[in-house]
């Protein structure tokens, strides 16, 4: 797998693969692959899973071991998710996520409530009398 491919669909530069080491050691055999796995961690029960970082590993089994050593060897996690980067669907198209037309009306702040609220308060006060 080439360096470009390991970059995956996230368009992020892959962490540098230690090619010198692979070559020098030459112990992974022909066709050795190094894939990037994204790691998510939960700090304590009930917390959301948060992105922790990633590990480069030849397969999911070693990726799991590396994730454990990198993100929980000081007992800082109660759960890890290890996901091959290539399995992540990336959505970053500005047309879909940042449409050019005004979307203020989709936000609560898009409505000016102050004047309406004043009128309603006055009416309520008048009705009490």
């Amino acid at each position: 797998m080439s360096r470009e491919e390991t970059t995956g669909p996230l368009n992020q530069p892959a962490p540098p693969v230690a090619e010198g080491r692979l070559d020098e050691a030459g112990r992974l055999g022909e066709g050795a692959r190094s894939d990037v796995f994204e790691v998510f961690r939960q700090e304590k029960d009930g917390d959301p899973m948060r992105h922790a970082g990633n590990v480069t590993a030849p397969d999911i089994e070693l990726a799991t071991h590396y994730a454990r050593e990198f993100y929980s060897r000081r007992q800082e996690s109660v759960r890890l998710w290890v996901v091959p980067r290539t399995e992540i669907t990336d959505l970053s198209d500005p047309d879909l996520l940042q449409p050019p037309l005004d979307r203020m009306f989709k936000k609560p702040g898009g409505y000016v409530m102050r004047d309406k609220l004043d009128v309603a308060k006055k009416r309520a006060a008048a009705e009490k009398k």
Partner: protein
Amino acid sequence: MTTEEARLPTRQLIQPDVPTFDRRTLKPEARDAVTGLLLTMADDEFVLGFWDSEWTGIAPLLEEDVAFSSLAQDEIGHARVWYEMIAQLTGDGADRLAFHREPKEFRHARLLDHPRTDWAFSIARRWLYDTADSVRLAALAASSFEPLRQIVGKVVREERYHLMHMDAWMRRLAGHDGEPRQRLEAALAALAPDALSVFTPLPGEERLIDAGLLSAPMAELSDRWRSEVGGLLKELGLPAMPDGRPSADGRDHSNPSDSFRWLWGEFTSVARLEEGVQW
């Protein structure tokens, strides 16, 4: 920091893993036998931890470098726990046991006398040892000596992951024909004659068994180990470990090997700089 604070030993700041216990709960003969057993376990973990820590910075993958170094640290951590337990049993000091004994006083198994060699060798040795250690720990899981049983329960949980990690590498190396598999086969062949040394019969072994401290004799544990390693070796088409029983001199270092002398020189080099100094 005041001078007073500076004098405090750093060790006290670490949460003690070994509970304080009354050593008189063990009869003197049983105490000697337990001390002998613990020393073999501590020295095994300590020596392996130092050999494997030599991969820091030169492992075949960056991530493996961090992970393997962390495993090596775990082993030294386990050794620390066992040395501290011995220290409580005998009134000795954990640091003295670790850094101030002569090479001939160590009791690690001969399997751990070999140098680091190549990656396949370190993986094969670690896998053989971790499997043996798990069999030994299982034989202590129901020990009648409460503090020992407690620590074994904790150590087993870490060793489980070590073993899974080593299984993964055994499959990886054996599954790639050519150099990886050749190197693994050569390593296993070189280590096989010493593999049983982890189960070298202990002095006072019958006492340990009679007192319910250890569940079976070492020779019997060696058979269990052979069948444990036999499973994966067979699956991977690798030769089984040789038959036979552990010999009596598997932990004898009255004439220490050159490789262990060298390692000892390394791991005691700082401690020996100035005798009796307070760090």
